């Protein structure tokens, strides 16, 4: 089905085809280097983040395929694995050390490099100036540096994969003492140093980006674009940036102390340790739990750094494609704010069983469960936005609806895990894996896919192929549930995460078939992501060209720019804004762009 068929063609072309398509304001000379590599144009930087993110997503996804292979087929040997991976897969079997390295890097790569840099790096850069009516970010220079610090972090993380002793393998949380003592395991040697350095550069990148996003949103909105008129994407990206700016520095402090513990003989996190060899270490007086506090003070806001941009984009796409105003705009803003505040107050729910004072635990239970309130408000607002809407099932819309579904399914299990007494049973089991993969991993990926399909025409002036997009959606959607739903049962039965082989455990043997099933589906879903990647790159060059300025019939400002906007976004004046972004289906009109003045007989929102 073509986009025009979905969009009831006639309505869409009537709007805003008023000229200046190929005019460019700035005619400075651009070389390949300044245009594609050291670009200071926010749109190009967004694409750089996106494509780097896609490469990382491929690598991170590939790692999960490798370890799912081992988990699904623990008895089988795969000689070709040894051909590729050498001693990491001796005899065609993934070795324990390598398995830990794989799960560690899978987590690190997807949480930080894909769903933080790849998601908010892409869409904050792309959408903020376009949707608030600015020529570029507040500081294009810092913005460019933000990408290049990310690139440097990427290169270092990538190089750690090729170190003799292997990459970091103490889990993506890198808890000491395992991560602090090189002697503890192979994966605690040079790999961890590179991991820490890479992450420190990543923090710098995130800080430079975040400062830019905040000051651009607060200070560079066009005339009439009040904070209560900005699209919800902007609110979401704003809170994301604030979360990042305030939580990443704490992680940086934690990492600096960890680096000293590794190399300067300090004992910030170390005390009373005997190595397996029987050797006693001299370190006294430190606390391993201190690191967990510092880590999760970032780690919890981090999940909202991942989730909020997806929420914002989904709100925008759902409203546009339901041809209805978003339900409860201010409630949406309020709940984003509430989530941003609560994000800082719940970190210890990751630590219920690490020796936290049970009284303190009960405080964190209360604060954790409070998050259900703003989350539920958002869910109901999305559902009521869809309710009796004139829904157009564009690929972006499909993924947005998929996001809402996944957010509900994954969010409900969060209520289980937020209870400290239930957590004693569920902690570190597959139940946790299922919960956070659905609610934060796959859901945010869905938000990202929705954003890519929806804004691809603005990014490249072409459409992505819809048939491939629908195949991508349905298989990913069904596959995500088939992979993670059974994990809830495994987790309830007590099956622990991070184990290489369950076949020698009487309690978990029964899940052999289920594990094989999960692995099979995971591989199919991974293959379908390759279809997406193909569709993405193919469409950049060969996709059907966008012919109208506003293909989705959307109200927001990015669709008032030329089809392929130059650096500076608008030829001539930046448009003035007269109304909020959600005047859909108002006064008998399908949509009223933000640039249109409020009529004499019309009530302003």
């Amino acid at each position, binding site marked *: 089905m073509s986009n025009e068929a979905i969009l009831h063609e006639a309505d869409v072309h009537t709007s805003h085809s008023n000229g200046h398509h190929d005019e460019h304001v700035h005619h400075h000379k651009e070389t390949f280097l300044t245009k594609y590599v050291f670009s200071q144009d926010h749109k190009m930087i967004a694409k750089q983040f996106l494509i780097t993110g896609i490469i990382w997503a491929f690598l991170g996804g590939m790692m999960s395929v490798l370890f799912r292979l081992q988990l699904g087929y623990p008895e089988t040997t795969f000689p070709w694995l040894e051909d590729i991976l050498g001693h990491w897969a001796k005899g065609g079997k993934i070795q324990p050390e390598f398995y830990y390295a794989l799960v560690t890097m899978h987590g690190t790569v997807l949480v930080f490099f894909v769903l933080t840099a790849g998601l908010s790096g892409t869409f904050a850069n792309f959408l903020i100036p376009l949707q608030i009516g600015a020529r570029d970010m507040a500081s294009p220079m810092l913005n460019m540096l933000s990408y290049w610090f990310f690139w440097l972090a990427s290169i270092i993380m990538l190089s750690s994969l090729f170190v003799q002793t292997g990459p970091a393998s103490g889990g993506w949380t890198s808890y000491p003492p395992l991560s602090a003592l090189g002697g503890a395991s192979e994966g605690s040697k040079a790999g961890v140093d590179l991991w820490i350095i890479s992450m420190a550069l990543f923090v710098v990148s995130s800080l430079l980006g975040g*400062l830019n996003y905040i000051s651009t949103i607060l*200070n560079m909105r066009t005339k009439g674009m009040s904070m209560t008129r900005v699209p919800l994407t902007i609110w979401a990206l704003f809170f994301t940036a604030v979360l990042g700016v305030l939580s990443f520095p*704490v992680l940086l*402090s934690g990492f600096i102390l960890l680096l000293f513990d590794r190399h300067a*003989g300090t004992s*910030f996190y170390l005390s009373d340790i005997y190595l397996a060899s029987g050797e006693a270490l001299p370190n006294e*007086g430190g606390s391993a739990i201190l690191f967990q*506090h510092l880590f999760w003070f970032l780690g919890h806001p981090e999940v909202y750094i991942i989730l909020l941009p997806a929420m914002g984009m989904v709100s925008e796409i759902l409203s546009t494609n339901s041809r209805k105003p978003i339900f409860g705009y201010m409630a949406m803003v309020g709940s984003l704010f509430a989530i941003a505040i609560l994000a800082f107050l719940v970190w210890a729910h990751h630590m219920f069983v690490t020796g936290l004072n049970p009284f303190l635990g009960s405080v964190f239970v209360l604060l954790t469960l409070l998050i259900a309130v703003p989350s539920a408000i958002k869910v109901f607002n999305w559902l009521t936005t869809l309710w009796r809407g004139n829904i157009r099932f564009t690929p972006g819309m499909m993924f947005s609806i998929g996001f809402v579904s996944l957010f509900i399914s994954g969010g409900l299990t969060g209520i289980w895990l937020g209870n400290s007494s239930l957590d004693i049973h569920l902690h570190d089991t597959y139940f946790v894996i299922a919960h956070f993969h659905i609610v934060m991993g796959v859901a945010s990926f869905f938000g990202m896919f929705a954003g890519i399909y929806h804004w691809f025409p603005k990014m490249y002036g072409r459409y992505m192929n819809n048939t491939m997009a629908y195949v991508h959606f349905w298989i990913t959607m069904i596959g995500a549930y088939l992979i993670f739903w059974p994990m809830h049962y495994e987790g309830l039965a007590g099956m622990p995460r991070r184990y290489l082989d369950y076949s020698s455990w009487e309690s978990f043997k029964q899940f052999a078939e289920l594990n094989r099933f999960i692995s099979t589906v995971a591989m199919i879903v991974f293959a379908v992501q390759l279809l997406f990647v193909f569709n993405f790159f193919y469409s950049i060059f060969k996709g059907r060209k966008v012919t109208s300025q506003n293909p989705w019939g959307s109200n927001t400002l990015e669709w008032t720019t030329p089809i392929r906007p130059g650096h500076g976004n608008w030829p001539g004046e930046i448009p003035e804004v007269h109304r909020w972004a959600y005047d859909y289906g108002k006064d008998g009109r399908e949509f009223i762009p933000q640039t249109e003045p409020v009529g004499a007989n019309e009530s302003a929102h």
Partner: protein
Amino acid sequence: MSQTITADRKWWSGGKSPFNVEYGKLMMWYFLMSDAFTFGAFLIAYGTIRFSSNSWPDPNAVFRTFPGVEGNMPIPLAFVSLMTFILIMSSVTMVLAVGAGHANDKRKVLIYMGWTILGGIAFLSCQAWEWTHLHGEGAWWGRNPFMNIDGSQSSTNFTNFFFTITGFHGFHVFSGVIINIIMFIMTWQGVFERRGHYNMIEKAGLYWHFVDLVWVFVFTCFYLF
């Protein structure tokens, strides 16, 4: 951009800056908030470890020396008080430089920035002496020669945190001095004069005051308690 400012300003209505500051200053404020969290994390980590320890060395006994004076001083913390005084005075000269900038007085900006830079360098030199002295006494990361106040053997975390946090602060002072030197040169070359305003001096000033403020907390946590 030319907007008439009426009696009731709606800061949040767009078209003009909500905090009535330019974006660079806004960015600096958010950066300082971020940096405050970095230092906050360090100091909280220090507090956590210190209060979970049975005892801790007495700063009044540790910090009792003064350059050029044999043995211990009759009063504790004399040298670090001097350091603190120097740093706070450099904040005062920074305020004067910002004030001179508001008055577009290039000569005075240069004079006061010069004093601020000098104050920063003096502070760093003091710190270098203190570190060298402590190192000479056998203190370093992972080595602590000082006994706990109750006479028991101390863990190394007293010196670990001392060197990490004062080092991180010293690095901030160092960056501040570099920034101030750049500001000095730019003022000297007349960059801000041509621009018509000295906003950059003000932003450098924000950073410098922040570094001073952090020192007040570091001083309190490490020397006074």
